[in-house]
């Protein structure tokens, strides 16, 4: 097709047209890079092999919990009775393990700053099946099987480096978690790609044997989320048979366990053995496929742009081409230089695309690691390289084909002899108009879609969350007092709890005296906790109708809570100190809750009952709703505030004075004045907690802003490309018009009229497609809130863009005396 000589000529020619070369390489590099990154993301989620041997034989067992009517109440939970399977595994399995995540973070008590850690409780099979690589020491072995009560631990390399200075002597050393000392037997290498069964955000820092899982002590009828039965099939094909084999067994065991529990009668569990890949993928692929579609669209716009640029370049080279033709150059001679240039451009673009893709991986890992799975496996991969090469080749061929079809060799040959003003490289008017129309349609589609998402997430971000968060902190407390024994009589347990509450209140009052502290409160959780966890309480509003139960998120707290967070009371009053001290049976509910009790929300004085009617609460206040949808609820949930008792998960809540800070040591010192058992586990900024919840909105806003900017930029370059190309072709004609008296404004007006026609046609097409898309989405469950601004603004912008680029494209012609255009300068 071309030789080395052509390549070096082409390189020289491109160095003389740096602007053109840079535009092509940048446009293509950016969009191709984005596409490659999105392809890789989808490939990792959907198709890439998992980093575990025989991954297709790995399954994750859990049960769905079905209500009386067969509807699913909870997915992926584990009834305690399932543990019995572990003792006599199915003969379809070659290996098995139990795996559970700690519900609350624990603290490393052997360290003075008592850092918080996340724990995975498991059996030796897990480390075998998932080939946990050990940096030092060993994995769990038979000595750590269920029932061994062997207090050993495997640390993650991260924790080992961060808290133990990567000290090799840690092997055999003891660490203290809760009230138990564990001997470190292994350090898991950072290369271990931990299977994230409950989503990408949760990783573990320490692995402990199953026996130390609090869940393992629970009664037979308990049911837990975040716990799994992991298995490796002998044959991949056995999965369904295995599922069918276990289903009746597990349900039978469950039925036995709930016998005599009237509230459970009729409920059942259904065992599922999910392929590991399916579980890890979750529902992320629906999002990532949209991102792939968006990037493909960007690339299409870019391709249309580049076609324009290539064609206009060929048009500019027309004179030299026609001279070459006159000197006897064949068609392929003329094409070879164009192709040689194309080769350089595509190569450069491919290189840039790789860099862009790498940058995209880094960005995704930095900002989306908690929302998308397998991000840390993104990177170089053969199939991805193959894809990028193929995509580049395909584009190159497409461009080459288009160019060669547009170079009219015969016309070129004649152009020198004839009046000299004919042109051999010319896209027909139709093609040109079609290009403009396509371009504006694609840009409009992309702009409108991303503007919709952008507006939606911006609206969410702009909204007040409903409570103050700046300078507010959540302090989790590590209580080193021996845990109350469940065998203790109830009164004794309650007394212990009450004493703990008394002590915490004393701590609170001490903290309130501290000069840095504005306000302090004690509660199970703040309005939004660092881990997203909240307490819940259920109420019966009407004793005559005991089956109507309303669930709520509950804060068991004191009279300082609502003022601390500036949560306004819409009706009624706050708790009194007296009510908090006596654990009075009063409750404050939020507006959403109130409106469910009475449509007018006027509920002061109304009563709520505990299930079974043992306790009767009086509603004394109605608080304002929050506005912070989280992963559990898209709408404001019912909330209630009780002064009654402190349930597990106690936090000290602080508002510091502006510019003030308080560290763990100072807090620990204050606490030690009250009780030797209290330590500060961790200090979380409520502001950060809020940001974490809003992260997906930030992410959506960032991605779509990038999309909007990029697609607008591409559309601008593209439309400018076509217009300036056609202005270029018509320069002489415009010169003639000017010679016989057309004013600059007349020329501009005429061009605008001509240019707007295809743009408007493209916009009309896009509008129709969008309406079709919108109607299509109405059929699905996808919630789309259409905003008129997000629809009209992009279209108006594209029209404005056309006007500006029209002006820009003929500016060089109409701003100079007519002779310049006539002489082709």
């Amino acid at each position, binding site marked *: 097709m071309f030789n080395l000589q052509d390549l070096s000529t082409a390189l020289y020619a491109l160095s003389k047209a740096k602007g053109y070369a840079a535009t092509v390489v940048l446009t293509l590099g950016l969009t191709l890079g984005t596409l490659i990154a999105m392809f890789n993301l989808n490939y990792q989620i959907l198709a890439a092999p998992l980093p575990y041997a025989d991954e297709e034989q790995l399954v994750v067992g859990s049960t769905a919990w079905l209500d009386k009517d067969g509807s699913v109440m909870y997915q992926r939970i584990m009834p305690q009775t399932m543990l019995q399977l572990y003792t006599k595994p199915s003969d379809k399995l070659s290996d098995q393990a139990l795996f559970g995540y700690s519900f609350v973070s624990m603290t490393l008590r052997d360290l003075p700053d008592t850092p918080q850690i996340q724990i995975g409780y498991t059996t030796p099979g897990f480390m075998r099946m998932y080939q946990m690589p050990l940096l030092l020491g060993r994995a769990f072995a038979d000595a750590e099987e269920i029932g061994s009560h062997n207090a050993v631990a495997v640390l993650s390399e991260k924790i080992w480096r961060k808290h133990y200075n990567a000290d090799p002597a840690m092997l055999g050393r003891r660490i203290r978690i809760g009230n138990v000392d564990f001997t470190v037997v292994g350090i898991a290498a950072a290369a271990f790609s931990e299977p994230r069964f409950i989503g990408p955000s949760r990783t573990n820092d320490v692995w402990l044997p199953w026996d130390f899982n609090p869940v393992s002590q629970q009664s037979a009828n308990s049911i837990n989320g975040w716990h799994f039965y992991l298995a490796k099939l002998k044959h991949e094909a056995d999965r369904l048979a295995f599922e069918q084999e276990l289903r009746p067994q597990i349900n039978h065991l469950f039925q036995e366990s709930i016998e005599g529990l009237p509230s459970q009668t009729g409920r059942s569990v259904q065992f599922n053995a999910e392929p590991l890949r399916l579980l890890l993928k979750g529902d992320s692929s629906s999002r990532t496929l949209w991102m792939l579609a968006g990037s493909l669209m960007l690339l299409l716009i870019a391709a249309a742009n580049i076609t324009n640029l290539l064609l206009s370049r060929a048009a500019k080279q027309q004179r030299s081409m026609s001279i070459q033709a006159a000197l006897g150059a064949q068609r392929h001679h003329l094409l070879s230089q164009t192709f040689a240039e194309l080769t350089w451009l595509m190569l450069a673009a491919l290189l840039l695309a790789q860099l862009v893709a790498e940058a995209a991986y880094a960005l995704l890992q930095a900002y989306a690691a908690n929302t998308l799975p397998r991000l840390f496996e993104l990177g170089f991969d053969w199939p991805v390289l193959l894809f990028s090469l193929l995509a580049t080749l395909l584009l190159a061929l497409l461009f080459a084909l288009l160019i060669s079809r547009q170079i009219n060799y015969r016309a070129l040959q004649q152009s020198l002899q004839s*009046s000299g003003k004919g042109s051999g490289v010319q896209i027909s008017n139709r093609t040109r108009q079609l290009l403009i129309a396509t371009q504006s349609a694609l840009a409009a589609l992309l702009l409108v879609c991303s503007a919709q998402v952008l507006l939606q997430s911006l609206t969410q971000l702009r909204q007040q969350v409903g409570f103050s968060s700046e300078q507010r902190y959540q302090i989790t407390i590590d209580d080193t007092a021996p845990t109350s024994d469940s065998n203790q009589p109830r009164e004794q347990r309650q007394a212990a709890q009450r004493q703990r509450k008394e002590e915490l209140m004393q701590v609170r009052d001490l903290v309130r005296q501290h000069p840095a502290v504005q306000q302090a409160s004690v509660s199970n959780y703040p309005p939004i906790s660092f881990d997203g966890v909240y307490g819940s309480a259920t109420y019966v509003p009407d004793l005559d109708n005991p089956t109507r139960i309303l669930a709520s998120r509950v804060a068991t707290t004191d009279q300082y809570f609502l003022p601390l967070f500036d949560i306004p009371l819409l009706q009624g009053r706050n708790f009194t100190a007296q009510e908090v001290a006596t654990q009075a049976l009063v409750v404050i509910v939020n507006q959403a809750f109130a409106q469910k009790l009475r449509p007018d929300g006027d509920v002061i004085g109304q009563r709520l009952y505990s299930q079974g009617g043992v306790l009767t609460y009086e509603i004394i206040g109605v608080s304002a709703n929050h506005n912070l949808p989280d992963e559990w609820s898209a709408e404001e949930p019912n909330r209630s505030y009780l002064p009654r008792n402190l349930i597990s998960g106690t936090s000290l809540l602080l508002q510091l004075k502006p510019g003030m800070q308080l560290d763990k040591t100072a807090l620990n010192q204050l606490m030690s004045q009250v009780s030797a058992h209290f330590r500060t586990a961790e200090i979380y900024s409520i502001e950060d907690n809020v940001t974490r919840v809003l992260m997906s909105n930030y992410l959506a806003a960032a991605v779509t802003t990038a999309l909007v900017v990029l697609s607008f930029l591409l559309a601008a370059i593209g439309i400018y490309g076509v217009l300036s190309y056609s202005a270029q072709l018509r320069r002489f004609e415009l010169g003639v018009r000017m010679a*016989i008296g057309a004013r600059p404004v007349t020329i501009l007006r005429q061009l605008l009229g001509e240019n707007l026609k295809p743009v408007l046609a493209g916009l009309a097409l896009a509008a129709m497609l969008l309406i079709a898309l919108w109607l299509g989405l109405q059929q699905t469950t996808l919630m789309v809130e259409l905003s008129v601004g997000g629809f009209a603004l992009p279209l108006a912008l594209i029209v404005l863009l056309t006007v500006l680029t029209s002006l820009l494209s003929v500016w060089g012609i109409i701003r100079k005396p007519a002779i310049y255009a006539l002489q082709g300068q």
Partner: protein
Amino acid sequence: MKQQKICMQGITKVFATDEMETHALRGIDLEIFAGDFVSICGPSGCGKSTLLSLLGLLDMPTQGSYQIEGQEVSGLSLSEAAYIRNEKIGFIFQSFNLIDELTVFDNIALPLRYRRNAVPKAELEARVMACLKTVDMTHRAGHRPNQLSGGQQQRIAIARALVGSPALLLVDEPTGNLDSKNGDAVMDMLSELNSNGTTLCMVTHDPRYADMASRKLHLLDGRILDAEGTPLTQPETLLRQVAGQ
């Protein structure tokens, strides 16, 4: 005393390119009167086309004053120059320069469409048809330029130049792209127009055609020579230059 149409005084034109400055015109004084037929000749590169484009306000002089029918035009804006061009000047180019997408009729009508005050449709049609008649091309009104021969195209170009009743008709090598028979026909047409009162200024290489003019100007190195071949202005500069070479 004949009416003065054009008056140029001390017109110079310098083209500044990256490497050098080209003095295409070095002080032109020129008067053209109503009914004149001026021919401009001279060796290649002496500045004929440059002079013509200045005369036609296609370009602006570097220095000097230029009046059309007594109105100073050397410092006009692009837009104002376009109006003057439209109303007072007609162009005939060597390469016809018709617009391919427009019909013969529309090509001719174009100057009227660019008028400051819109020309009524009926008047426009009448004037276009009258011009077509002048160049004897009435039967081709609906054709496209590329369906015509070179001679025919040039006649359409003449019609287009005439349609606005310009004060001055500027012609650059009108026969350059034509054979001698067609060239003669075009020249006959131009001298006929002149005898009917049109003021003409024509650049040509062909001495036969130059002789048809009532006044002949010789251009050399950006200056006008008199009939004997000595510069009309600033002779000492030229002599110094010749001596210097």
